[in-house]
């Protein structure tokens, strides 16, 4: 890490790649979901058009400072997670600023975005946004539980909380991946992944046809644009997180793209099959199967 | 009924305690050392013939002081406790005329009783008797008078006057004991005088007269108070 400037350049480049890959991935996934429903579905580059449309809007209204800063918090949450996440194992340039924090930092950074969105929606003044936020938060707390259990069991297994060590320990073939050596933790983790992605069984909060109920009720034009860019980045970074933890990280960009696609595909695959949960159902569901898996993961390391 | 039975059991077990108390009580054959001391050198020290009086007045004079205060307290408590409210004083009561015999008998008997009372506490140190007995006799004389003519009332101020003065002089006599003799209530303030005649045994007769006066007036006070409240209700 001879000097910060080069590192900054590579991080920006990485961010650009991740943003594009996020949008393309979203487009592909929509296409697949449509195909499953025997529909043609919108073109793969549709997300690009959405972004361009949103950013080119001339008028926008704001309900106050916090409303204005809400999407900003959200975006900085997504970008922040990206900054502290080592993308490519072994390469000096692609490990972004991961020297500053370990898994715990990433785990708690997720809240940063959550908080921003919640406060912004709250400022909006519309009651439906508050309902959406309270639902999102309650669901989120129970999602975190199996994830924390999984991370702790990994930490016990690899005696370390830093990404580089965890990924290093998983190098050398499928059999070294955590998925293989610690299947219970991976199962708990992947179930929690469903919750984080916000796809079908747990998408009550940001469900497309429930816009009026979800948190971004009042957001429009540039604000919505910022939210959509963050959504793209966040999905990729989340899948990179799970990749590093459970599927042996990536030694090259191609491996990263392939693995993130497959991980993301897992949540879409489940999303298509299962109907939407109500809040009580999702909260109690998370406290049943994933929780038990997490506990077992810790007991049987 | 159960309560009575319970009390009976209580008393039975109480008597068990006393039986054990008597267990090693053996009749005394000779005086214990305390009373032998009194018997031997009481005549030289105090010069009173009646041993009991000497113990009561001097040796254990402090008890008698306490004793007198009890009566004094009882009298004053009854005094302010049964106080007659001013409003009831005027109510007259229908008097039953006392019988003829009582009236005339009391005229003769009362002076005799007073004389006996004075005699008893005058030479308390010679013959049995003393302040308390003399005072009680005087009080019974007064009661006889009250019975004889019920409409007359006890002059409380007079009797409480006598009572206080005699009490006060009793305390002063005690204090004199400290200055002139060896201790509080010691009777060697006055000369012991010739053993057996009226003016012997130092202060004892003097103290006993004052006790007699005090007890007499106190008891009359008590009876008077009880009698007066009677008026209150008629």
């Amino acid at each position, binding site marked *: 890490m001879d000097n910060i400037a080069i590192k900054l350049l590579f991080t920006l480049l990485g961010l650009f790649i991740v943003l594009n890959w996020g949008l393309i991935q979203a487009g592909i996934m929509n296409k697949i979901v449509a195909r499953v429903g025997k529909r043609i579905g919108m073109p793969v580059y549709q997300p690009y058009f959405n972004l361009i449309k949103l950013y080119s809007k001339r008028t926008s*209204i704001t309900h106050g400072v*916090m409303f204005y800063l809400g999407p900003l918090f959200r975006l*900085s949450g997504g970008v922040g997670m990206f900054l502290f996440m080592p993308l490519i194992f072994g390469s000096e340039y692609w490990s972004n600023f991961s020297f500053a924090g370990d898994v*715990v930092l990433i785990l708690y950074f997720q809240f940063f975005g959550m*908080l921003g969105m919640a406060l912004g929606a709250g400022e909006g003044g519309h009651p439906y946004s508050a309902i959406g936020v309270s639902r999102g938060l309650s669901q*989120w707390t129970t999602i975190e*539980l199996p994830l924390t259990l999984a991370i702790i069991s990994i930490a016990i297994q690899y005696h370390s909380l830093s990404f580089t060590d965890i990924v290093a320990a998983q190098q050398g073939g499928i059999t070294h991946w955590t998925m293989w050596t610690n299947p219970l933790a991976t199962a708990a983790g992947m179930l929690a992944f469903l919750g984080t992605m916000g796809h079908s069984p747990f998408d009550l909060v940001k469900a497309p046809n429930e816009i009026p109920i979800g948190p971004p009720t009042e957001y429009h034009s540039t604000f919505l644009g910022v939210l959509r860019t963050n959504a793209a980045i966040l999905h990729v970074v989340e899948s990179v997180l799970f990749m590093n933890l459970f599927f042996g990280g990536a030694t090259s960009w191609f491996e990263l793209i392939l693995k993130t696609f497959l991980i993301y595909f897992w949540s879409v695959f489940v999303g298509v099959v299962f109907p939407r949960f109500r809040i009580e159902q999702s*909260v109690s569901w998370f406290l049943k199967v994933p929780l038990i898996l997490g506990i077992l993961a810790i007991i049987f390391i | 009924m159960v309560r009575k039975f319970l009390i009976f059991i209580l008393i039975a077990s109480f008597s068990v305690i006393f039986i054990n108390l008597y267990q090693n009580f053996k009749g005394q054959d000779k005086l214990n050392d305390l009373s032998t001391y009194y018997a031997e050198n009481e005549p030289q020290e105090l010069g009173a013939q009646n041993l009991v009086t000497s113990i009561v007045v*001097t040796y254990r004079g402090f008890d008698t002081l306490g004793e007198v205060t009890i009566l004094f307290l009882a009298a004053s408590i009854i005094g302010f406790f049964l106080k007659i409210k001013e409003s009831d004083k005027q109510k007259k009561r229908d008097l039953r005329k006392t019988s003829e015999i009582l009236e005339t008998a009391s005229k003769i008997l009362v002076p005799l009783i007073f004389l006996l009372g004075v005699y008893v506490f005058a030479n308390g140190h010679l013959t049995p008797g003393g302040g308390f007995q003399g005072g009680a006799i005087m009080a019974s004389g007064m009661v006889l008078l009250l019975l004889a003519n019920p409409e007359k009332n006890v002059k409380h101020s007079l009797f409480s006057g006598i009572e206080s003065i005699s009490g006060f002089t009793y305390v002063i006599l005690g204090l004199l004991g400290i200055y002139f003799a060896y201790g509080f209530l010691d009777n060697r303030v006055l000369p012991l005088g010739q053993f057996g005649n009226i003016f012997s045994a130092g202060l004892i007769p003097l103290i006993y007269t004052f006790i007699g006066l005090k007890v007499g007036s106190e008891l009359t006070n008590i009876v008077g108070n009880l009698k007066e409240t009677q008026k209150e209700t008629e």
Partner: protein
Amino acid sequence: MVAPIYIITIPLGIAFLIGVLGKSNKNIGGMFMLIALACMSFVSAQWFISFMTSTQSPVYIYTAGFKPPFSINLLMGLNEAFFTLIINIATLLGAIYLYNNLKKQGTNAMSVFLGFAMALNVMVMTRDIFNLYVFLEIASVATAGLIILEQGLKSTSAGFKYMIATGIISSILLIGIIFAYNYSGTLNIDGLIEANIGILKGGAIAIFLILIAIVLELKPFPANGWALDVYQGADSGIGAMISAASASASLYVLYKLFAIAGESWYPVIAVLGIITFIASNLFGLKQTNSKRLLGYSSIGQIGLLITVLGLSPYLGDKFEFIAVTLLISHYLAKAILFWISGIVKAENIKNWSNLRKKPLLVALFGTAVFLLLGFPPFPSFFGKWELVMQLANSGQFAWMTAILVGSFFEGIYLFRWFGYTLKLDNKELPEYKMKLNKIIPPAIFGVAAYILGYYSGTFVDAAKGLDYIPLLFIAFIALINFLPAWVKNSISLTGVILYIAVIFPEFDGDLLRQIFAAIFLGGAVLALFAGFYSKGKRSGFHVVTLAMFAGLAMLLKADNLLEIFYAWELMTIGSYFLLIRGKKSMPHGYSYMMFSLGGSYALIFGFALAFVSFGNLDLQSLSGITIYPTLAYSLMLLGFMTKTASFGLHIWLPGAHGEAVVDIHFMASAILLKAGVFGIILVLLGMGTEASYAKYILYTLGWIGAISALIGNIAASFQESAKRLLAWSSIGQLGYIVFGLALMSHLGWMAGIFYTATHFLYKGVLFLTIGGIALKLGTPYMYRMGGLIKKMPFSFIAVLIAIITLSGIPPLVGFAGKWLFYNAIISQGLYFQGIVVLFSGIVAFLYLFRLIYSVFLGQLKDEHRNVKELPLCLLIPIYILIIAIMIISARPDFILKPIGNYLLAYFPSGALNWNGTMASTGLGYWDGYWVMIIVGVMFTLLFGWLLILNSKSKKVKQFNMVYAGEKPFRPETTHMSYNMFSGYNKALGFFMMPGVTGFWNWMSDILHDTANYFRRIYSGNGQSYAIHIIAYIIIIYLIVF
């Protein structure tokens, strides 16, 4: 030196003289009485001083000029001088108090009073047993007379019952005396001691009769129905005389006659005393008549003194000190309480709230209550401490528990009563005026209590270190209570700052105490500064706040167990008065006091075990307790955990803090709870980890911490009132700290201490802002607030920063605590407790959002249109705390490094190793400084980018919500803060059943039902009381022989 005989002759002579004065000139009679009593007190004072100062040997007074066996003699030794002095002072002040009553009854009553005083003196001084009987009889006749001073059915029937009872008792005494004379041949007490007639069966029974009569005179439990009626029936002034003067006289008589009884009697007396103490205090629970309750309490205290007498072989040389301090405290407290009840004349304890019309009376009432229960500045504190220590020293743990349980019962009804006085409204209660002669005696005794408290402190060697400057400063503030609040505020502020300057250098070596000193005293400065918001007088507030902070400062400065306990109790008093100030805070203040009382008794038990196993009182004795170590450590932890409101002991906190005003809320939560943490640290440092029992205790402590964290956070998210939400969240945070400490590892303690410091910072911000807003809007309920961001931007920013820190979101300092916890849990291996703690950390996010959303965001209510920003005096302390948070967030190593070095001494392994600003443990690494910079830079870049994109968005009015469904028209409908997490509640609601409150209510119900059932024994029938006396004698006889 005036001859002691004058103590007897003066009152007698004047009593007779007054009789002469008759009814006419009562005033002169009154004057004479007072002069007589004054002379008596002067003589006994003269003797007492000469005994205390010069080496005056005891003096025998021979009546009738003959040596003792042949005549009655009186003794004037040190004990006699002391007892006659307290009796004469009590009767003198009692006479002043009763002057009008006595005058109304005339000179007879005055001479009876003089007779009463004289009789008590002689009872104390006489060495002849028959003389003792006579003067005991005088005293009972005089008391019977004084009872009916206030004519009435109640007093007459009480007097009659008294006459029956004392008649039987004195006859039994007479029988005992006669048979003792018959066996020993002498009536003199010294003669009886030598004659030792105990060996004979009959002689032993004679002594039994004498002693049982004296014990009956002291109103032992089953046979004291008559005494209670006397206390209830008689005039309060007389009640004071009986409970203060005649009780001490009979106690001394029992002590005097004890020499005759010999060794076998000690356990019997102790058992009788403890039964009386516990039973009468237990019955006090259900009592509503004030005078009868005072009767129960004084009988209980006498029972305690009898127990102390009975346990004297175990108390060694400390016996005199304990007996005197406890007697003096009972004597002063009971006299004050009876005199106040005479002034306020309220039958039911509920309408004692009438007392508040005269603040002096409330102060006196408080002094008496705390004096009785043995709180710091008073002599009974030292007495009770020495009692427990000596009992522990001789291994009498059963006795210790019995005494502590008894005084806990007493604490229950006394504090309930005090709570009624402070809080119930007294509009419609009758007006009363405080005549001068009625207020002087209690005032004198009140002042005497404090002076004697200080004086008795000098006797206890462990208490040498206590510095009394803060207490003097508090007394000074108490005097200027009439000044307006801001004047007092500034004086106390300067006082605290000066005190910090004085004591802070003392801690320079010891970092732990420095942190806690910063929290306590820094918090004090901020709280007092925030106190400027209140207008008006705020009477009593500053005295009490300074008492709390003095207690906290002393807690840090303490270097032995006594000073810790002293500071702990002082702090409890201060905090009780603070918490009770809230409008509806009576039940909560009461439950707070109950928990802290129970906690302090557990504490003193633990300290006693530590003292015994180590030999002396300094702090090292906490480590390596050998006798019942598990019990000692768990009791001490329990004691300290009452203050940190951990699970099971937490039910007082939400109510107490929910009702407190803004700066009190800040003091109570941010500062007071840390005192408990400091205590736990001391105990855990002492306990160490290697002992077998230690593992077990630490495991349970860990679970308690974890569960209280979970319960605290989940409960907080369901609260409707903002202040209760914060109170529950403090329970959660304290649960964190307790869990951290229970880990007993370097990282665990680092996390715990770091959390204590940061909790003070961000919770301070939250309390001050939310408290200020609740004060401004007049309601703590969140669903009535909303949209305040427009009106109070600064407080919004402060709360936002506090929320980010509390939930542990990275850039700010909260994350450091979470990170430390993560590493500590994984390295320590306590996974399941760890999971519970981490889960509750995440749940914390719920109520934080609810707090900030319902207070600041959403729609602004119509009535809050003209609400202005928080007053400056609140904002300044808030922003000081904010700046502190920011500094520590940027450079967390400013605090973490010193803590690390400090903890190395205790936990060498598993320390944080630093390079530059990056902290790394065996597991992970974290660099606060770089995280702060990266997030900062990124945030500003994105903010700039958003500004460029969206600079032209225009602000819209409140209801312009076009982008979603239909348009709501009134602000109420657009506020969704009521029952916010209902979904969550349905899923996890079962977990939140109020189990613990149910448990504690069930416990107190049992106590009250037993009390109600057993007190039926006092059926009111004089005859049955006589039966109880006889039965009592028989039972004791059967036990003894």
